[in-house]
């Protein structure tokens, strides 16, 4: 399945959309794999993330850190995760991964690009590279890494490196589902690019079959300060 996620660079434009949807449930795949070995039956947890105005919040990362059990051993995927560049934008805004995961940045654009990070969890910089090139980097420490392109100020992406296999990214309706989580006490964490500090809450999951209340968070988000790529507004007048 994962080999299908690594198409030829020319086909990257087509592959980008399905890739994004699958990444959202990537954590669940890991959980399923782990649950196979788990002594207890795994549970499923629905999450609903909104802002203070009750609007759904997309691109929020929900993760669960076990409090009673030792942290589970992580098995990073053998193939890299893709964050492509297209239309002078990173094609995945927020990408959650586990520690040790490789990420490849294929240039599926018509112009050269550059990728750099000044975040403490992973500092790196690729030189300017032409369309077709696909440099790769491995994220070996947990944390949030902000990615930029030094010739296109508006380009921005986040990689969230986690130490737990139980995580999910909210879709446009603000929902996400965590599956294969063993019952027990957890610290639920929510991260979002516009959140000042990671939200944390202790929860207890019942065994599978017992219905558990959906995990709901209401986030106080900062204003969106992203630079807009204004190709369509260039020459649009005096500002």
């Amino acid at each position: 399945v994962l080999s299908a996620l690594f198409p030829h660079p020319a086909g990257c434009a087509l592959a980008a959309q399905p890739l994004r949807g699958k990444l959202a449930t990537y954590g669940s795949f890991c959980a399923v794999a782990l649950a196979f070995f788990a002594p207890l039956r795994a549970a499923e947890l629905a999450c609903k993330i909104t802002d203070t105005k009750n609007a759904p919040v997309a691109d929020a990362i929900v993760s669960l850190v076990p409090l009673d059990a030792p942290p589970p051993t992580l098995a990073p995927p053998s193939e890299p995760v893709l964050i492509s560049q297209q239309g002078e934008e990173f094609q995945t805004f927020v990408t959650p991964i586990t520690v040790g995961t490789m990420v490849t940045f294929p240039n599926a654009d018509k112009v050269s690009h550059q990728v750099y990070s000044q975040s403490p969890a992973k500092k790196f910089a690729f030189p300017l590279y032409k369309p077709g090139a696909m440099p790769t980097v491995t994220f070996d420490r947990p944390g949030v890494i902000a990615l930029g392109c030094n010739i296109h100020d508006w380009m921005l992406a986040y990689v969230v490196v986690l130490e737990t296999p139980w995580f999910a990214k909210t879709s446009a309706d603000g929902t996400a589902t965590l599956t294969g989580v063993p019952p027990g006490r957890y610290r639920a964490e929510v991260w979002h690019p516009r959140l000042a500090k990671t939200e944390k809450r202790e929860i207890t999951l019942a065994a599978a079959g017992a219905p558990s209340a959906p995990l709901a968070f209401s986030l106080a988000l900062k204003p969106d300060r992203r630079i807009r790529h204004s190709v369509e507004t260039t020459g649009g007048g005096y500002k």
Partner: protein
Amino acid sequence: VAARVFRFRRFGYRVLALLLALLCAALGTTFWLVSAANAANARAHARANLELGARYYAAAIDQRIEFLVGSASVMSGDDAIKQTLREESLDARTLASLLVSYTQRVGAPVIGLFDPEGRQLANSEPGMDNENAGPFAHLIARATQADMPQASDYSYLKNELHVLVAVPLYAPYPVIIDWFGLAFPIDRAFAQKIKDITRIEVTFVATENPAAPRVLATTLSDVAAQIVARAAVARRPAEEPVATLTLPDDDYVSLFQKQDLLGEAPIAVVLQRPLGPELAAAHELESAVLRISVVALCLATLLALWIARGVSQPVQQLAAHTQRIARGDYDARIALDRVDELGQLADAMNAMSAGLAERDRVRDLLDKNVSPEVAAQLLRDGAALGGEEREVTILFADLRGFTTLSEKLTPGDLLGLLNRYLDRMSAAIEEHGGVIDKFIGDAIMALFGAPVAQGDAADRALAAALAMERALAELNTELSAEGKTPLALGIGVNTARVVAGNIGSHRRLNYSVIGDGVNVAARLQSLTRTPEYHTNIITGAATIAACRRSPSSGAPSSVLGPPSSVLRPPSFRPLGRVQVKGRAEPVEIFAVW
């Protein structure tokens, strides 16, 4: 017509018209002056604002250019940027996308990169090909030629007005390896920004085609901007730069400026400020002046009517009072409670009434003490000493036996009898136009023909004498009836030229006559006592001669005399000549009956 219009029937209207005319003139002049000053002030104010706005506009452009130059200098001096720009893998398309990033950093909508010869390497604006970017090449060529650190000018980019800035990329200074070309548009948004700060309307007009001027940018409506564009095209270079332009919504004080363009025909920059808001305060003031004027006119009207009433009412009172005085009511007094001229007039009228009353009283007294004719003569000619010679008929009457009578009667009875007698005699004399000159005890001296000349004086005197005789007869009848002694009298009548006039001292004088003729009359009266004459009335030849001369001879005047039926013409009986005391020649005398 004017004379008819301005002939006022009432004093009040005159005062009203005068006051209102004066006030209207004063207020009208004030209003006009205020209006003119306000309008001039508003224009001056608008113009001052315009000039300020023009300076702000120029400063805004300069500031913007400086900012772009500063930003471009930071970029061109940045090592990382220099390296990025010189990177081998940097193709034109990537460079263009990089320049888009720079447009956002700098805030210039258009950024191009040019080689030292002015050839464009890339541009942030998608359609900005080499031809469209031509003005940048011009600017860079000019800057290179003049060895300027940077250059800026106005020009068209893709047919839109822009301000262009060229900043060199040094590696190292002063070696120019590239040029940044930046531009910002002079568009509606830019104009609006200037207007937001200065409240001034800005319009940019391309004037190269006078038949169809093109509005490049404006804060006005399209219709108004077209009017401004046509006005801008129609202007001559020597014309005063400020003019008032009428746009659909208001009059605008307009400042016309010329702006040179890089390699193109110059454009017109028109800065405008509406007069309406500037005049608003003035209009408020004017309407206040108008309101005050109306109030002032109303007050003036009331004041004028009040003043007029204050004058005309007492004048009407005075007129009414004058009419009372004219009717002879001298006792009436007018009371005006005021101290002004009208009050003085009222006082004067009262004094006049008093004076008239006094004169009347004096005249009344005079009438009693002297005969009415003498009184009238005195009042007419004054009581001056002096006289005139004239022909007068003198009548002397005397009671006979009065001395004996006075011994028999008590003084009171005597005086009563005497007054009764004199009253009748006086009446008879005055009836015939005679004037009582004086009473001398029981004697009466009367004049005919003085002080008022009478043509029939002699006739009147004789008629009066006969009337006296008859009146005495009547009195005697009454006295007999009362058991009293009847009276007898003698009358002498003489006509002579005598001196008539006021005789006496300065302090006291009488109107009288003196002369020989008077003595003769007295002598003739004395002669009546002569028993053989058998007459009570004796007259002289002169009187008879005067009778014959008079126009009414034989028929006394019906005007002054009693009805003619009662009268008969006097008859004369010659008594011969007698020697009169004091006269050399004997006098011919006649009995009258």
